[in-house]
């Protein structure tokens, strides 16, 4: 009798294990993110007891290599967290599957995300990922340095004009004319290239690319580059590499203002800096911003019940409740305007969230090369004295070749 009971018990266990679907989730290692996802997996498994999620992390630096190694081996994850800019590369490599339209309709995107998200995850007419959180740019200013310069520490510049005027007042030089305190940090290799490309170009009446991001158009608004390089060469309020980089300069109170992303908030708070956050200065009444995000996508590994489980999981991660939790736990901005609304009056998060409403997420085919192009344009102007018009034109030519090459290889 006892034997039978034992057999029945074992059978029951086997059935319950077999009934469970297990999916693998990959993300890079970032302590707060890892902890948050572990929490969320617990919550998710309470909702769906028949789904088990294995959470795997590895260093950011090895992300692409790790993914590359897993593809031929067929051992990769079912759900992967990736930078939106990598989607084209991952799709053309046959790594991701499009999100099923039944679960992720146009309406779903409209209702749940800022508009740039749907565009950012789209490639060749299909959408591939959904984010939990997003990032945008804002102007950080050091209140103590404002006070020292006799400026109102609660009044950051609102327009580009004011930005230049205030930056000039905040810049200090030594006897030989070297900058010892920058009014505004300028670092194209940091967030500067985004500011030039998606913000300044639009503010000076241009458009960085054609709507489908296949044609480079920023060269038509050379005033954008001129405005940026004038900060370095004419107004002399900062230069690339001052105190090594913009972040070091701002954290060490050597730069009074900086344009940086929302992901910097935690570090600045930790540094004990007395800083404020403002929306990016506008120009001619035009506001613009650059947004970017990491998103969860489903790989080709997930089929059948695994695919269903993966869909449930990424939808759960993009839910309003999770976004609120994520803002508290990780400090990244909610990707859903409804959730974001609640934080609009937050002095730190508010300006970033408002910026999201008019933000654009650049479609990158090769983020590194496309950043280099802008960095080089700035360097040409301030190190070589090339006129901004020419530098921008040359940059556009190089980048256009890059885009053409990419689309030629995609074959569409």
């Amino acid at each position: 009798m006892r034997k039978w009971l034992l057999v029945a018990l074992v059978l029951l266990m086997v059935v319950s294990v077999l009934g469970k679907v297990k999916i693998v989730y990959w993300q890079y290692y970032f302590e707060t993110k890892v902890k948050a996802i572990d929490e969320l997996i617990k919550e998710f498994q309470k909702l769906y007891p028949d789904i088990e999620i294995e959470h795997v992390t590895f260093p950011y630096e090895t992300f692409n290599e790790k993914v590359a190694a897993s593809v031929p081996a067929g051992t990769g994850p079912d759900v992967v967290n990736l930078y939106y800019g990598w989607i084209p590369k991952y799709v053309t490599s046959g790594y991701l599957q499009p999100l099923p339209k039944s679960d992720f309709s146009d309406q779903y995107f409209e209702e749940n995300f800022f508009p740039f998200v749907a565009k950012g995850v789209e490639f060749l007419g299909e959408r591939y990922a959904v984010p939990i959180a997003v990032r945008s740019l804002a102007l950080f200013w050091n209140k103590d340095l404002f006070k020292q310069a006799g400026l109102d520490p609660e009044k950051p510049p609102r327009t580009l004009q004011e930005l230049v005027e205030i930056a000039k007042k905040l810049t200090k030089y030594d006897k030989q004319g070297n900058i010892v305190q920058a009014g505004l940090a300028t670092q194209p290799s940091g967030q500067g290239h985004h500011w030039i490309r998606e913000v300044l170009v639009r503010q000076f009446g241009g458009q960085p690319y054609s709507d489908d991001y296949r044609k480079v158009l920023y060269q038509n608004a050379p005033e954008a580059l001129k405005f940026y390089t004038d900060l370095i060469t004419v107004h002399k309020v900062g230069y690339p590499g001052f105190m090594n980089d913009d972040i070091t300069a701002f954290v060490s109170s050597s730069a009074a203002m900086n344009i940086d992303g929302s992901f910097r908030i935690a570090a600045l708070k930790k540094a004990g800096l007395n800083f404020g956050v403002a929306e990016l200065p506008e120009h001619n009444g035009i506001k613009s911003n650059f947004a970017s995000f990491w998103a969860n996508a489903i790989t080709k590994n997930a089929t059948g019940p695994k695919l269903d489980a993966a869909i449930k999981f990424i939808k759960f991660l993009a839910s309003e409740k999770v976004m609120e939790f994520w803002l508290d736990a990780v400090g990244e901005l909610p990707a859903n305007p409804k959730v974001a609304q609640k934080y609009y009056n937050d002095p730190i998060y508010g300006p970033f969230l408002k910026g999201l409403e008019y933000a654009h997420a650049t479609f990158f085919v090769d983020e590194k090369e496309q950043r280099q192009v802008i960095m080089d344009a700035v360097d040409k102007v301030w190190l070589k004295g090339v006129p901004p018009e020419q530098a921008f034109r040359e940059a556009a030519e190089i980048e256009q070749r890059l885009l053409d090459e990419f689309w030629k290889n995609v074959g569409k």
Partner: protein
Amino acid sequence: MKLRQKKILTAYLFLALPLFFFVFIRFYPMLSAFYMSFTNWNILSPKKDFVGFSNYVKIFSDPVFRIALFNTLKYVLLGVPSVIVVSLFLALLLNNMIRFRSMYRLIYVMPYITPMVATSWVWRWMYQRPPAGIINNILNALGLPTRGFLMSTTEALPSIVVTTVWIEIGYCVLIFLAGLQNIPKEYLEAARVDGANRRQLLFRITIPLLNPVIVFLSVIETIIFLRIFTQVYNMTDQGSGGPLNSTKPLVLYIYQKAFKSFDMGTAAAATVVLFAIILTITIFQLKVLNRNVQY
């Protein structure tokens, strides 16, 4: 089996292990890099299509590759002679020292044994403009104009060469000292008795006898400068080899193509080119410099 045969067999068995290691860890990846240079593999894609020589055509028509190639040669031409001359000079000084010799030796070797990333960052900070950089601060205090160093398209590469020479000196001095100590004292004494002056002693006896050491070091240092990477990666903004590619060496070009743009085919083609350059230069050096000196 005879004992002799057994011995031979055992030897082969023991030798097989490192051979196995070399074949699979060294030669196999090398050969596969050759193969890879003929494909259009991007790191993520499982498929590798054969594209013939198009990667080679692509890199040679890429102005950035040509700049990187040229920069690499600049590193070698500026770096290798400087390292050899400076370290020989220091070794000669150290060789004549009796007190504190080991302390000085330690000081010179220290940069070499410090992790290169750390050394690079210290130099990067020293090269900063005021108020951060110590070199410019000294210039400033002396009332001299400050310099761009790493922030200048013309000064950045020589600045990195200086750092590298500073790192490499330790190793070269040690090897030179060993070489100097191998020179029989009798030769020098005999020459002195014959009335040779110090200049003659140096150029007629010491340096010719150091020839094997000089050959060895110039080959090693040439390879080191041809493969320069860590310094440039750590001393330039975002590891870009800038400003405006003025410091980008071949290895950095390869690294960026492979792991930033995932263009493995192009990267492999550039690797093959680098390999060919290193091979040619090394053979040339061994042939030309390693002539036997007759006395």
